[in-house]
């Protein structure tokens, strides 16, 4: 039996009375009383290092489950789902971009971008219906992200610049049109000019598919470009920062 995911749910994400601690008895690394994110919203999450950004993204991605409270993603109560169900939900509906080292070194650029299709039939078919095949969709996305150059695509991923790697990672996160894109400090390895260009490309892609973007960073200068900014330290004093 598959869990019915409501892809039209609005708000896309709803958190209530959330607390997360790594072990019982320790202080919570994250507390959020209430947070709702609407479809297509671009949300900036800021927190100092160790302030719970990665934990929040992990909870939204369903890699970890909350200790208290509720995490609702696309109408699904994540804390009630099994680990396998959360993995399935992530595979089908969520794209993720890391701060650095997003790419699997032994796969080609195209194979890296089509990776979500290996774990999700939904994203594979969505990519195929859009441009014919996952590979074609990968090329389209790469071209949109200024990586259309054929020679560049054929290079080993380890030879790409950091900026190029991050854009390949975005292409992968957008593969098969997921509803939500989570990004953990995706720009911190880029210089100021590249950061602006990267965000512009990212926003264009999000707007094109009405994607909900949640980007976590400690760099407040980015906040102005987003629909909304949330500072985690307001709600969760970084008590258990390690």
């Amino acid at each position, binding site marked *: 039996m598959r869990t019915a995911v409501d892809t039209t749910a609005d708000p896309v994400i709803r958190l209530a009375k959330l607390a997360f601690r790594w072990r019982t008895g320790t202080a919570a690394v994250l507390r959020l009383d209430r947070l709702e994110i609407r479809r297509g919203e671009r949300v900036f999450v800021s927190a100092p290092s160790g302030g719970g950004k990665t934990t929040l993204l992990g909870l939204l991605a369903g*890699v970890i489950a909350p200790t208290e409270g509720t995490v609702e993603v696309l109408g699904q109560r994540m804390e009630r789902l099994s680990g396998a169900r959360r993995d399935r939900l992530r595979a089908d509906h969520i794209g993720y971009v890391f701060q650095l*080292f997003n790419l699997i070194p032994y796969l080609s650029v195209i194979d890296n971008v089509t990776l979500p299709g*290996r774990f999700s039939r939904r994203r594979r078919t969505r990519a195929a219906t859009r441009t014919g095949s996952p590979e074609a969709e990968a090329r389209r996305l790469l071209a949109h992200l200024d990586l259309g150059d054929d020679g560049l695509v054929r290079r080993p991923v380890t030879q790409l610049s950091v900026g190029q790697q991050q854009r390949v990672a975005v292409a992968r996160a957008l593969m098969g049109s997921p509803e939500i894109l989570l990004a953990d400090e995706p720009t911190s390895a880029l210089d100021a000019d590249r950061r602006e260009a990267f965000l512009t490309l990212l926003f264009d892609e999000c707007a094109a598919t009405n994607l909900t973007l949640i980007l976590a960073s400690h760099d407040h200068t980015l906040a102005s470009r987003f629909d909304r900014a949330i500072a985690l330290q307001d709600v969760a004093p970084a008590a258990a920062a390690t």
Partner: protein
Amino acid sequence: MAILSLAWKSLLNRRATLFVTLCSIALSVALLIGIERLRIETRTSFTQTVSGIDLIVGARGGSLPLLLYSVFRIGQPTNNLSWESYLDLADHPRVAWTIPLSLGDSHRGHPVLGTNQDYFTHYRYGHGRPLAFAAGKPFADLYDAVLGAEVARALGYGLGDEIIVAHGLGEAVFARHDDKPFRVVGILARTGTPVDQTVHVSLEAIEAIHIDWQGGAPIPGLTISAEEARAMDLTPRAITAVLVGLDSRIATFRVQRFVNEYRQEPLLAILPGVALAELWTVIGVGERALLVVAGFVVLVGLFGLLTVLLTSLNERRREMAILRSVGARPGHVFALIVGEAGLVTLLGTLLGMALLYGLLFIAQPLVAAHLGLHLAIGWPAAREAAWLALILTAGLATGLIPAYRAYRTSLADGLTMRL
């Protein structure tokens, strides 16, 4: 399937390290299966050599030495049996045929066997196949010789060539019967048995070349030429052993008792199958020891694989986090590592078998030439397939340990990229 293809690509990415592991697995597999193959093939070859022989009769002594020198030309006969005893045995009502054998001379390292026409009529090998001539015919004249296939090939002899028989066995002989040369009249087809190694002459010829000899040396001052010998009485005085065929298997024990209780001289009759079984128990200890050692070598190869997989885990935590982020379950991570272990073991096993078959193709003519053993090169037998399956399972099991660790860390790390 998606995970297996990932495992394959990841494996290719670390091919330098894994290739060494793969080679050690391949070598250990080749060793293990090679020993198993040699064991089985030796037995088959030995068993096929004594096809259709009901009893082997010789002077009293050990049954194993009798079997080894009479049929396999291994070791030296110590005593002979007299011609009269042989005639008595051949006259026994239940004896269907006999092949008298007289050994002790050689030609350039190949044993010379004195026998009679019955050898070409009654000797069987394999599954009851008679001897066939590749060229020529059985010996008819006193100084005719029939060569085994390997003798002719190794020494490059053809029909009509002249050969000199030397006194004694082995490569280093001191005295030659060079006054009485033999002419090659026949070459036997290959049998894959010690027959291929043998030079066959008549019993009378053995008698003739020793007629001016006594106690293993020429009698000083006495020389009898080849032509003079023809005129003399060449009835053998003694022979080395007799291969016996009976009219019915049921008579085996009766005839055996007849021989063992023979009053005129101490004789021994053995059943080839029983003596072979005795041989296997002797050899079996060594074989088992070899197999155990080979088994441990495989184990060492798998430990190498385990080491490589475990050391790679730490540097692959990032890879695991990426896979988790695109929707891989911890189970996928587990399957990735087990799949890698399985692929390396599978490739190692295939490479090992390729190596083994390559070696067999090289070794087959050499073993046939030096040991008279025929190594059949066929598909892996059921037992070998079982060994291979066991190795593959062990390889997968080896993968379970690092796979479980990767599973645990990928659960604990989640999407944090610890480096």
